[in-house]
């Protein structure tokens, strides 16, 4: 079964600083990879996803993520963080299972705090 690890439970960055959120997965092949963001009191919203092609993926709100097969990682980055980026970020992996549908496993999330 696939698994997802987000090693950082909580990260604090200054507004304007760069950001990198880590995500590692465990699966025998390359799964579909996602980053979702959850603002307080809201549902999750897709930031970006990867399933083939260019390993550097651009998403909404200025985020990007890089798939590194050798490291089984899919880290999320943003060059300059804005206060509105304060939220919880979830990495997720999806695989097509024997039932013919995509099973998605979410990581435990990283809470981002942005300070002035």
């Amino acid at each position: 079964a696939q698994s997802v690890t987000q090693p950082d439970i909580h990260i604090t960055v200054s507004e304007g600083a760069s950001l990198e959120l880590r995500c590692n997965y465990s699966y025998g092949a390359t799964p579909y990879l996602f980053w979702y963001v959850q603002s307080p009191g809201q549902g999750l919203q897709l930031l970006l996803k990867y399933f083939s092609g260019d390993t550097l993926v651009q998403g909404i709100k200025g985020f990007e993520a890089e798939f590194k097969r050798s490291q089984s990682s899919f880290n999320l980055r943003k060059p300059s963080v804005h206060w509105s980026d304060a939220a919880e970020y979830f990495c997720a992996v999806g695989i097509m299972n024997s039932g013919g549908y995509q099973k998605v496993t979410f990581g435990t999330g990283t809470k981002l705090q942005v300070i002035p």
Partner: protein
Amino acid sequence: DARVTQTPRHKVTEMGQEVTMRCQPILGHNTVFWYRQTMMQGLELLAYFRNRAPLDDSGMPKDRFSAEMPDATLATLKIQPSEPRDSAVYFCASGSSAPGETQYFGPGTRLLVL
């Protein structure tokens, strides 16, 4: 702007009562997911429907939880009887069932069982 809607947004009930949560998926989406989110367990998949048929409900406690899709525009999650440990935020999401599909989440139902 198509969105997943969920009702109610908040629910406070007493232990033993029945709770029904409703979800309207995005029109045209044929997959529906129910998740439960708690501080301790994070985001857990409870049930997955495609074309209104349940494909995976292995994450759902069968003795008290049930999920249905009476029609393509309505999904329901019921808890009977409810217990304090069911207190959580319940999310519905919908998608298109394509490989690598994006899941579109509703705003959630925050349930508190006293």
